[in-house]
């Protein structure tokens, strides 16, 4: 790499994570550590029915017996589960505020600063937002308009109260709590997240979105999201995440379950920008996320799109179980790691039904001293006649201290299935940079242009409202690498 490139990358290093501020607010927390009392505390705070508490306790017992999964290409000290707060809510949040006048202005200001206005006059056009602050949902916009269509969009805590039958039926149905230790942990201590139900044949007219913010120190966030698209319905959902800049690591262990019934379609997009740690690898969020979608009916479709730029550690494999005949699963991913970030991310496509199809497009960009791994599994089960999969994994390396790894597993038990896999690894090309600069673009503009071009195939899958935001984020995330 020539000196000019190193200089540019060093310049990026000077810039800082711009969502790293802390909101100064009194919060309500139980004692540190995890035991049955912690779970009872959370359940009581949320005024949960008995069945919910016993489900949680049951999951906790499972968790106690499970070791952390250790097969990922990640290196981090053991997590001390007794040194974490499992619940944190701004004081006075026993009940979700009925409207914004009951919400502490500091919270509203926080979301304004993050570019997510909650006040009615200022809400984002065409996007309904559920704002989750540490362990509680602060506000949900456009709620009444959606209710008129029969669409339920609320926090999961509210859903437990108002739609217990749906929660009972579907919670844990796609991700069994005993799947692995992080899913068991989340099931035991989950605090808030979103709940969506789209009734039969309803096409949700606006984007639904949840914005997760971690604020309190030494606190884990355990988000739980459940989306059900009934027959013939459609929904597009987006989640965004940020956290303050701190030099200790924080844990985020989320579970997201999607269920698409016959002819239904769910599009789920994530823009993950948790605090990634500083340029020396100090601090940052440990992001252990389980996301799984079930295509439970004929012709159903689930597509995951993710732009992963934050977190010190990302461990995440949004997956699809293609049970219904002709169902479709898609996974589009951009993962950027910089400085000392580590990402082990990918997807699992399980083909059960006939003529099921899946498509995987993964773009990994590594800078600085980071490690970026794509890990994927495509399974074609015995009865999945004429199932098809196409996988494309491309890695781009910027600098010479980072690593890119591609680990695809393919397991086919049906002779009529067609599985294709393409992979490439390249270094950012000095010739491309020279060409752009010869046309008058600065070094930074050139790097950002080339990387955005590399990610294009994925970014164009994002809802329009967020595509521009994501492009900017991609450019910002190129900060902090010293070539």
């Amino acid at each position, binding site marked *: 790499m020539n000196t000019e490139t190193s200089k540019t990358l060093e310049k990026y290093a000077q810039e800082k994570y711009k969502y790293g501020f802390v909101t100064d607010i009194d919060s309500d927390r139980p004692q540190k550590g995890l035991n049955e009392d912690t779970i009872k505390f959370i359940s009581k705070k949320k005024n949960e029915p008995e069945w919910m508490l016993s489900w949680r306790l049951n999951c906790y017992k499972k968790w106690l017996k499970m070791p952390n999964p250790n097969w990922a290409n990640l290196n981090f000290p053991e997590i001390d589960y007794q040194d974490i707060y499992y619940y944190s809510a701004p004081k006075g949040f026993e009940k979700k505020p009925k409207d914004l006048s009951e919400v502490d202005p500091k919270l509203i200001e926080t979301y304004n600063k993050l570019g997510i206005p909650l006040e009615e006059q200022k809400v984002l056009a065409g996007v309904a937002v559920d704002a989750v602050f540490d362990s509680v949902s602060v506000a949900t916009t456009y709620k009444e308009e959606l209710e008129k269509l029969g669409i339920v969009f609320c926090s999961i805590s509210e859903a437990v109260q108002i739609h217990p039958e749906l929660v009972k039926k579907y919670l844990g149905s796609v991700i069994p709590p005993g799947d692995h230790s992080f899913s068991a942990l989340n099931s035991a201590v989950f605090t808030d997240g979103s709940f969506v139900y789209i009734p039969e044949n309803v096409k949700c007219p606006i984007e639904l979105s949840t914005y997760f913010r971690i604020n309190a120190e030494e606190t884990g966030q355990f988000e739980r999201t459940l989306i059900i698209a009934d027959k013939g319905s459609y929904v597009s959902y987006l989640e965004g995440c940020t956290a303050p800049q701190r030099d200790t690591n924080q844990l985020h262990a989320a579970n997201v379950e999607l269920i698409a019934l016959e002819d239904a379609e769910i599009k789920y997009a994530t823009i993950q920008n948790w605090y990634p740690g500083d340029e020396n690898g100090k601090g940052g969020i440990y992001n252990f996320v389980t996301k799984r979608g079930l295509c439970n009916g004929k012709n159903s479709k689930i597509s995951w799109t993710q732009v992963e730029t934050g977190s010190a550690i990302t461990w995440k494999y949004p997956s699809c179980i293609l049970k219904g005949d002709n169902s479709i699963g898609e996974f589009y991913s951009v993962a950027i790691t910089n400085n000392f970030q580590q990402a082990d991310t990918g997807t699992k496509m399980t083909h059960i039904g006939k003529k099921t199809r899946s498509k995987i497009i993964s773009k990994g960009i590594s800078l600085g001293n980071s490690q970026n791994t794509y890990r994927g599994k495509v399974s074609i089960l015995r009865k999945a006649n004429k199932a098809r999969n196409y996988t494309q994994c491309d890695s781009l390396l910027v600098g010479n201290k980072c690593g890119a790894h591609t680990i695809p597993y393919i397991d086919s038990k049906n002779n009529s299935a067609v599985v294709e896999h393409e992979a490439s690894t390249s270094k950012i090309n000095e010739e491309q940079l020279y060409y*752009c*600069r010869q*046309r*008058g673009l600065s070094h930074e503009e050139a790097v950002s242009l080339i990387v955005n071009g590399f990610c294009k195939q994925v970014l164009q899958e994002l809802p329009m409202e967020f595509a521009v935001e994501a492009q900017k984020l991609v450019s910002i995330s190129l900060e902090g690498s010293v070539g």
Partner: protein
Amino acid sequence: MIFLNINNLSVSIEGKKILNDFNLTINQGEIHAIMGPNGSGKSTLANVLAGNEDYEVDSGKIMYKDKDLLDLNIEERAQRGIFIAFQYPVEIPGVKITPFLQASINSKLKNENKPELDRLSFAKLLRKKAEDLGINSEMLKRSINTGFSGGEKKKYEILQMSVLNPEFTIFDETDSGLDVDALRIVTEGINNFKNNNNSFLIITHYQKLLNYINPDHVHIMRNGKIVKSGDISLAGEIEESGYQNF
């Protein structure tokens, strides 16, 4: 004003001397051609004028529009009107020409303290220029140089030149590997574009291109310096008896 004056320029790459006390003066509105065998230092000259950091300038001076060019980096030179039509234009997958060239022209306008072009007026300009050159509008929708044939890449270079309207264009063996049709587009592009303000340096191995363009001066280059200068008849001599006489 001195438009371009290269004075006793010596350049090396990885310790090997490529240009050796090289001298050349180009005035505004002139077309100069440099011919020479492989390894004579022609492409090095183009790269040094562009500011490519892989080349080390050991001594000498380059004055361009009364400014010391060696004080400026690649993009600063480009913003001041230096354009290279590359021998092998590089592919940039996923990046379309419209935003790319818009950023490019705006970097220049910004440098000149002129208002930048918005998306709409730029798109109009680009379409008009493409039409003038007979370039299919389909081509404007593709990623830069990606999957293009050699000829298409060169046409794209000419299109970029005519949009950016540089004062000094360097053709780095643009004619190599061109079919008759592409050669025609390239030469027409140059001929339509040349005027009293714009100067050209055409680096080539063959005489063919020069027959269409009619340069004001032709130079023969060997071992890192110009060994003979003359008019177009010099190119004819090369065509007949090669470089061994120089």
